[in-house]
């Protein structure tokens, strides 16, 4: 087989890689959305004035959540959720939701801390000024604090999203299924093909790495566009 032929065969595998990239992105995207929602909720609970027992109770829960999730490895959390789901449902024909929820729960804890510290880093004088003209805590948050906090947290949130995209590669530890058929994420497909053609393992890994890199660069571009947009209304 000539070198050209070999390369041609490898090139024919691109569809598999793109499909797997798709699954990685679906999982990452779902997890980012879920993580962001969890993060906002936790951050609001952590920041709300602790003037009634219900908020205090939820605050304790939020602290526990953040401590436990940040204190244990993502892979362990994924495997625990995956195994628990197996125990309860025996088999699922489509189980993409399992890694989405696992990574979403995981990311939520980090997002919560990012959002909380972003809100806390807004000058407390802003809240005082809002309250002093008679605006409620919620209105001041909405109109004054959160718009300023967003500007502060955009870089860190994107950092978290980028880490999350790459971290989805640990799903290759579990068996993904879509409509009863086994599927692989980006790292997973490189591993699987590498087992079949050990001589090309490195090439497959490089291909996966390149695709992760492309996604991260795209995200970085989006981040810069958003940052520039946010900076505009200040001059």
């Amino acid at each position, binding site marked *: 087989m000539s070198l050209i032929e070999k390369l041609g065969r490898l090139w024919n595998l691109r569809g598999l890689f793109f499909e797997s990239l798709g699954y990685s992105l679906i999982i990452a995207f779902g997890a980012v959305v879920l993580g962001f929602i969890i993060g906002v909720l936790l951050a609001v609970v952590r920041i709300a004035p602790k003037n009634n027992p219900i908020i205090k109770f939820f605050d304790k829960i939020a602290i526990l959540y953040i401590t436990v999730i940040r204190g244990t490895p993502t892979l362990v959390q994924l495997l625990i959720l995956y195994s628990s789901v197996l125990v309860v449902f025996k088999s699922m024909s489509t189980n993409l939701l399992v890694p989405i929820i696992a990574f979403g729960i995981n990311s939520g804890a980090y997002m919560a801390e990012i959002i909380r510290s972003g809100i806390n880093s807004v000058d407390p004088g802003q809240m005082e000024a809002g309250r002093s003209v*008679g*605006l409620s805590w919620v209105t001041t948050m909405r109109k004054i604090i959160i718009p300023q906090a967003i500007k502060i947290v955009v870089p860190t949130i994107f950092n978290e999203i980028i880490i999350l995209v790459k971290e989805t590669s640990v799903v290759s530890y579990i068996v993904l299924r879509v409509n009863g058929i086994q599927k692989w994420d980006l790292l997973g497909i490189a591993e699987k093909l590498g087992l079949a053609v050990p001589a090309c393992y490195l090439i497959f890994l490089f291909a996966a790495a390149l695709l992760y890199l492309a996604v991260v660069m795209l995200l970085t571009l989006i981040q810069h566009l958003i940052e520039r947009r946010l900076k505009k209304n200040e001059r």
Partner: protein
Amino acid sequence: MNDNYIEIKGLYKNFGKLKVLKGVSCNIKKGEKVAIIGASGSGKSTMLRCMNLLETPTYGEVWVENKLLTPIDPYLHFDVIRLSKTYAKLSEVYKAEHPDASTEEIDAAVIADIKKNDLLKNYEGTAYRAAIKTLYKENFQQVDLSRRDMGMVFQHFNLFNNLTVLENLTLAPVELKLKTKAEAEEKAMDLLKRIGLEDKAKAYPSTLSGGQKQRIAIVRALAMDPQVMLFDEPTSALDPEMVGEVLDLIKKVADAGMTVVIVTHEMGFAREVADRVLFMADGVILEEGAPEELFNHPKNPRTQDFLSKVL
């Protein structure tokens, strides 16, 4: 009922173990200009910030226009106590025992008894609990309502950084549905014109000088049509050449009849504008009086000492 706009009764404020206010009482009448002076750390800002409950006092009461702002203990609140069955029953008993007592005497004795022995909690029905709840809620909402009438100006301006100058002035009136957007903008432009900054309407605060920021902070408060203006060292963070423009504006506001409470280190300004000067030290009001009285003939040695250093 009386003509005091703000009444402070026996105010204490602790930050953790630190006792900052140790029993402050004072009344501010409508239209009055009151200057608060005293060494740094004596509790001036804390007292001012208690007036609109930016700080919640540890003990004591703040009344604004005869409305209680500090959190009530509904079980100990007079109006609620008088609604209770316990009050009715005890009044009967007391009347029988003291046939000569006046209504006021009976009222005072019964309320004292109820408070002392905490008689209400267990014996009252749902109607009473509903009354407590309503009162509690009204008291809670009163703070935001009263703040609309109390403009506050901070040492560090605290303009809303994410909004333009115009939006800084219109946000609260529009959000609180006191004015339509058009009305609020008209009023805002009018105010900006008066301070000669109408060309800054579309600018963001980060582009303004300190003096401009503070004058805009003052008209932001005025945009709410307040009854009283609270100033916390409005010129202390300014470069010296900008102090004058800000003091001029405050004087204009005062001369227009506004009730003013100002914490300041500008003794000349206090003397010129204030009707009454309060000297604070160690969390209490040590001495108060008309400016010429307090500045020229201070009675307390600590006032004398303070004034000899700053004048």
